[in-house]
């Protein structure tokens, strides 16, 4: 199960498992977001190459429009997957 939650304080959270069975639904939700975007990943339990690909797509779309894209509060095991992809040096991970 995966969901994107927008909280009253304005923060946006990725929650659950972003795997290949969830990317279509997640893509529709992310495509609805615009402007500078910070995604809180403190409750993102798992990500695979399908999820990484979706976040790279989102980065490219926002970057092309001149907007920042940041991922914050990643669990170590999720951060490791970004590192395996060589993206920890490129994406803004905090």
């Amino acid at each position: 199960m995966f969901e994107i939650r927008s909280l009253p304080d304005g923060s946006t959270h990725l929650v659950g498992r972003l795997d290949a069975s969830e990317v279509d639904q997640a893509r529709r939700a992310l495509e609805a977001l615009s402007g500078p975007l910070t995604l809180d990943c403190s409750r993102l339990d798992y990500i695979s190459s399908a999820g990484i690909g979706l976040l790279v797509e989102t980065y490219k779309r926002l970057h092309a429009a001149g907007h920042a894209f940041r991922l914050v509060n990643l669990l170590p095991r999720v951060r490791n997957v970004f590192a395996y992809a060589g993206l920890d040096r490129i994406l803004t991970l905090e």
Partner: protein
Amino acid sequence: MVGREFQRSNGSLKEIFAFVRGFFRDHGLVEDGAWNVDLVLEELFTNIVKYGRPSNEPIEVHLGYEAPFLTIRLRDRDSDFFDPTAVPDADTARPIVERSAGGLGLHFVRRMAERFEYTYEDRVSTITVSTRLES
């Protein structure tokens, strides 16, 4: 090894992850190690779903444990020859704007695997990966 069959669909992933959790529980393994097993299985399974023959034949997933190695085996009984171990590794040094959405899955498998093998016989593809579990 313990095995189960799963329908050839990304929709099977939740059942596969539950199978992994059950295996870890039954063998008294620390659950932290299951996340990497999930990742290896997802990347290999979805690769078969995406690039394999259109078929109604389910895909077998087998798990075995002999400390400190966990062995993952996938058998596709209706396949053409496709050796994932021979696919060139993803270039993770490329600038992000030049990256495609795919190509990373087998790179992740290689990062996790102590052993990564492929055999093909009588239309059956068998992929075997062994990964070390930290105790």
